[in-house]
């Protein structure tokens, strides 16, 4: 079954492994994609041993919230394509096989949070399970946009009671939800925009409706086990054709380095702002005026070896108004040789701003007494790595801003020159040069 929004976009889809669709499709009641979403589900590992395929899988071709059973533990990974940005392993007690566990993943503009159901202290018979935050990854950059959502079942993991909300679910509500599993979607307000109908068997034989952590104790009900290797994913070609998260590299104009030399090392630890900034010109390859999905500023911090090098390098920015945007000594913005990328301030949230901002660096030296010559700190090879939702057409778009303004016909010029060194050929002249009569 494929879930489609009112707009016809496939958001959640069940397929079997050979990618054959199952019909008819299900329609989401709420198609609005928001900046926050929540997903809850119950999972039960059936075997130990080798890592198992994905048991739950969220995300797009770009960013992923990736949840799976590794054979011994539940693992949450936050990824950008194959790059694992963060990983959390949920430590279970060894006696976990054939035991259910509820989880809830909440994504907001502030980050990603994982809640797990645990029994705290003396369990309340009516509410024996508490949904507790076990992991939080704060990020305003990695948006993990809720665009597609998939679950992959396997013989090693059983999944049940998947629910999806287009908002943040409060932990208190989550706790009520998992403790009142009544087949009706729980009591969370607002109600989920979708609840997986394949989660249930017949609940009428459940002797204790308020479940303990170990669900299938004391009643004969069991969740539906999906066929082996049934794959739930959302790679609907028609949808993805228009909603690709498109990564792009951007290269600076010119080759002037970003560097700084304070002359002598400072007496006290001091951070110096380099006066050098680079810009990334519009090459016509990135659409204008659309939200960015992710942005990273990359560089290679080094020095010229002529003295004491800098101890730290951080990013430095100028916004579209020319105002310096200094993120300070924030680890998210530090660039090291082992971690060459830094995030970009959230105020640069639109592809247009990529071309209007300037990118630089700041360098810190530790204090020394006596002062000695400092090396020239260099941030080499500045690059931008960005992702946006695009519609790749294979046709290079015209750089928008560069063609706006005042121009003058220049005698003898053989191409059209625009702002920011953009040069375009004269469009399709009928005649190159013809001297008639000779």
């Amino acid at each position, binding site marked *: 079954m494929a879930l489609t929004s009112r707009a016809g976009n496939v958001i959640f889809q069940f397929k079997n492994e050979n990618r054959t669709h199952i019909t008819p499709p299900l329609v989401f009641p709420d198609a609005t994609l928001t900046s926050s979403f929540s997903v809850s589900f119950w999972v039960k590992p059936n075997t130990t041993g080798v890592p198992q395929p994905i048991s739950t899988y969220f995300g797009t071709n770009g960013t992923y919230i990736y949840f799976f059973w590794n054979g011994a533990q539940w693992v949450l990974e936050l990824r950008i394509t194959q790059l694992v940005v963060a990983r959390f392993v949920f430590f279970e007690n060894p006696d976990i096989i054939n035991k259910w566990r509820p989880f809830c993943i909440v994504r907001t503009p502030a980050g990603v949070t994982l809640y797990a159901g645990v029994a705290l202290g003396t369990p309340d018979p009516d509410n024996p399970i508490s949904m507790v935050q076990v992991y939080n990854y704060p990020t305003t950059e990695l948006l993990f946009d809720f665009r597609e959502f998939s679950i992959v079942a396997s013989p090693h993991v059983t999944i049940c009671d998947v629910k999806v909300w287009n908002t943040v679910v409060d932990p208190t509500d989550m706790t009520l939800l998992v403790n009142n599993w009544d087949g009706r979607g729980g009591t969370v307000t607002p109600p989920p925009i979708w609840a997986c109908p394949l989660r249930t068997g017949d609940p009428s034989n459940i002797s204790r409706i308020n479940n303990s952590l170990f669900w299938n104790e004391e009643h004969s009900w069991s969740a539906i086990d999906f066929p082996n290797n049934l794959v739930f994913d959302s790679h609907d070609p028609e949808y993805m054709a228009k909603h690709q998260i498109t990564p792009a590299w951007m290269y600076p104009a010119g080759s002037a380095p970003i560097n700084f030399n304070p002359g002598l090392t400072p007496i006290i630890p001091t951070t110096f702002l380099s006066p050098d900034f680079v810009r990334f010109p519009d090459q016509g390859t990135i659409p204008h005026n659309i939200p960015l999905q992710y942005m990273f500023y990359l560089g290679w911090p080094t020095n010229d070896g002529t003295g004491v090098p800098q101890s730290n390098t951080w990013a430095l920015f100028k916004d579209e108004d020319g105002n310096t945007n200094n993120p300070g000594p924030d680890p998210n913005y530090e660039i090291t040789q082992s971690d060459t990328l830094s995030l970009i301030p959230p105020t640069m949230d639109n592809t247009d701003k990529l071309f*209007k901002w300037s990118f630089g660096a700041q360098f810190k030296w530790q204090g020394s007494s006596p002062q000695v010559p400092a090396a020239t700190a260099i941030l080499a090879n500045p690059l931008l790595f960005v992702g946006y939702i695009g519609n790749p057409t294979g046709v290079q778009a*015209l750089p*928008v*801003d*560069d*063609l*706006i*303004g*005042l*121009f*003058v*016909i*220049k*005698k*003898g*010029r*053989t*191409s*059209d*020159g*625009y*702002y920011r060194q953009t040069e*375009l050929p*004269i*469009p*399709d*002249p*009928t*005649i*190159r*040069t*013809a*001297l*008639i*009569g*000779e």
Partner: protein
Amino acid sequence: MSPGTRDHEPLVIEDFAGWWNRGDPESAPSDHFTIADNVQYVHSGVETRDGLEKYIQGNVPPLKVLRVYNYVTQKGQSLIVLGEGGKIYHITDTSATIPAPILTISEMEDFGFVAINGRAYITPFKTYTNPNGEKYQLGLKNQFLYVYKGDQSQARKAAGLPPQSNTALVAVLGAVSTGLSTDAGKHILAVVYETDTGYLTAPGPMLPAVPPAKPLPGFAILDFSGTHDIDVSNIPIGPPGTVKRHLVSTKAIEGYNGDPLGYQFFFIPKGNIDNNTDTTKTVTFFDSDLISDASHLIDNLSEVPAGVALNTYHSRMIIVGEYGLSGPPDSIENTLEGLPSGILDNRSIARVSSPGEPESISKIDGLIIAPLDGNPLTNVQEFRDVLYLFKKTRTFSYSDNYDVPATWQEEVLDQGIGAPVHGIATVLDSGGVNIDFLLIVDWSGLMLFNGTYSQPEMSWKIEDFWRSMDRNLFNQIQVVNDSINKKIWITLPDPLNKMMLHANYANGMNAKEIRWARWIFDMKALTIALIETDRLVIGTSGVS
């Protein structure tokens, strides 16, 4: 047939005659092309057009240009540019960034412009739509003519209000003079402001009133003794832009009728206050010294309604195509008062200033009313000492009889051909004429005008293309004529505005010899101007 011999007779083209877009392509003469894009004509040849380069060399933010004019100041040539948001900029330095706007009127979609004595006169206008869906241009309602001094200061409303004050001017007998100092008798004194552009306001001060009541004059009325100086006080301070104040007075009045505005005022000799700070002045004068009349200032518009086009004729400034001013609270003037039923604006009025005083426009006789046919005036141009007013399909001529403009004789020149708001080719940088003809854009084509409209039109060869343009959008067409190199450029209306027409008339200014081409750009080229005699500046708004 021997190897290498072509199996057809070559067609020898002695002279390439340009683009042909008229009738069936098969009917194109053999020396024309049915496609001639991005080419320009040189002596005995044709080549790819010259490329563009950016006008401002500095690192500038994008500025969507909607209209550009060449503005000749006392320091040289510059550009006056309308950008998005109704902002007008004066760009003088191509090496730097774009300065702050000199005028911002958010409703302004386009503007008319003329430079007089180094000052720029700007009139904001927009496009309206009538119930039939036809578009027309008028000056913005309750907006004004503005004057800009060319120094990056803010443009201000042209003309000026008379002095305003909460209290009346005071005149008392001063010190005793040695001998006679004035003529005895009742005199009325008032104050006139002089602005930094030389405009003289109507006499004042005017005392405030609650609308709909009109302000009343707060002039000083004094019985001169003949032997005392006259001490004038409570002289109001003018608004920013006031550089001088002048005291004016009537001659002695016998039988004062109570209407201070009903008498003739004169400038008092040595009655100038050469600043905008002093509030007192002592004067002495005889009535026979009162020579320079100031009463005509009372009849002038203190605020000039915005129109669509500006030009000059016999040292007078002309403004046409106004909507009008509806009176308080938006303006002091009410030029929409007393209109016939069903008439909402002053679209057929051309306002004419006094000679040498571009801001002095009499409400009484400083206007010409073109025939009322429901269509607005769109353009104004002097040619061979005759003033021409245009509507979209009408041309009228007026001759200066050296009396007030309201008495100028009208002649209907053409009942079928007119011009849109930017549809008359300006020459060089002056908006005037250095050649013996005008080029005028009309629905039927590009017309050559030398006192009458020549037929066939210059665009005869590309008639199909010309007639395909949307008549409702002819206000978007702008034409310039490089009379030295004998080239013409014409911007085109939506959706053709990524193209421009180019013509070369070096072989002759007639429908047969003119050579046309189409220039195509990657972005919308909305407006053009010629600077430095023959350099074409193009203003663009981007790719979409």
